């Protein structure tokens, strides 16, 4: 069974640097410079203070499955989920290169970069 092709993300001027880093195999997380707290998804203003004091930090790329669901009615099937990164934020993803029946809440996973339509690489996760 071939995997579902991921559509090209609609990048824009605010998030282009995040996507460029993905193409280099780096998952960059935004962190509020005022509070020191990571947040998700990437943006140029901190959702904690609305200040532009936002830095980006390369994630370890590891975490655990918060929840997931396998879309049994689609062809091909695909597994969508939220991963809680070790840095403490939770992001949506697809689980790839694995047996969907082996997935479980709490399973350790690591980031891999998968080419979407058009060539942009996007972060996905696979069992660690």
């Amino acid at each position: 069974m071939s995997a579902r092709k991921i559509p090209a993300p609609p990048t824009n001027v605010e998030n282009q640097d995040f996507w460029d880093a993905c193409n280099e195999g780096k998952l960059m997380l935004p962190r509020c410079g005022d509070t020191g707290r990571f947040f998700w998804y990437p943006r140029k203003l901190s959702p904690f203070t609305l200040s532009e004091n936002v830095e980006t930090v390369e994630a370890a790329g590891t975490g655990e499955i918060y929840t997931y669901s396998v879309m049994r009615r689609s062809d091909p099937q695909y597994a969508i989920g939220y991963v809680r990164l070790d840095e403490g934020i939770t992001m949506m993803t697809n689980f790839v290169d694995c047996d969907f029946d082996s997935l479980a809440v709490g399973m350790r996973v690591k980031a891999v970069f998968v080419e979407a339509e058009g060539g942009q690489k996007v972060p996905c996760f696979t069992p660690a």
Partner: protein
Amino acid sequence: MHTRGKAFIAGISEHPTRKAVDKSVAQLHAESARGALDDAGLSIEDVDAYYCAGDAPGLGPLSMVEYMGLRNVRHMDATDVGGSSYVLHVGHAAQAITAGKCKVALITLAGRPRSEGMATGTAPRNYGDASPDVPFEFIYGPTVVNMYAMAARRHMHEFGTTSEQLAWIKVAASHHAQHNEHAMLRNVVTVDDVVNSPVISDPLHRLDCCVISDGGGAFVVVAPEVASSLERDCVKVLGCGEAPKNLMSGQVDLTYTGARWSGPRAFEEAGVAPGDIDYASIYDSFTITVLETLEDLGFCEKGKGGAFVSDGNLISGAGKLPFNTDGGGLCSNHPMNRGGLTKVLEAVRQLRDEAHPAVQVKDCQLALAHGTGGSLGTRMGSSTTILGRADA
């Protein structure tokens, strides 16, 4: 500004259609509006406020006020928070009436996703490329069903909720729908029927999902002096609450909803508690929607929803909390994939003693209607209203 008892629902209408190949969206809105005004004993000349949400065609009020020939509108509100919009509109109309901005507010909903062949639950949902969260989620294929399925999975993980417990919610809805001649699904189903139906996106089965239907509905909220001038039984608006809930900057929690905030706001304004409610209309896009909402509104402890809904506890005449006695979205209809408005309608029927006799709650004094919009736990609107009889 408290609005308790300062507005009344005077008229309601539910479009009987479930598949409207021969009618336009605007036409369904207008037919529903006419029904609600007729029910109240009012005319389009009396309407001085109009409310609608994203299902209304064109520029919402700017298009529909003209289409329906509403000539006296001096107040309008097109707040669109998905399926929760119309319960929220009850509160906004009560506020506008209390502030003296209007006396007769008309709220309408309509749509025809079934005739248009919309893949409502299984097509990836994109709120538009300019939506700032879309690049980071849409590419992974979030659909209505798998988003709610992920909430169900996490609830099961944290609280031990089972598919069988969720199934009881559909079972209760089906017991009610058998008496509704317009309901799409009128067969009474069992827990086994639900858990043995095909898995759409695990752990949700086909019968955990609501129907996809065309249709519409409308209601009229009026000032006290208008209510007292009408012959029709009017229902008093006692309390309203609303809340957004979202991804919380990356602190995602899918085990609770915005009802955690909208519910207490409504109960406080009404001056009542969950235990006082005789009947509840709970938004039911999926079984898990009902379960989390009941917990968040305080009908049971967080995490105990599975036990609460089991063994027929939501069935009118058998359980402690009769819910969705029209069959709800799970069995009757879900016009334009937005079930908030029909939740208000069945609550009004119960308070007027006009629900089907087989499901009418005896001496129903207090009812609650709750709307859920968007996607459970991640980008959602929650709205709660508490209604009572005119003498409440």
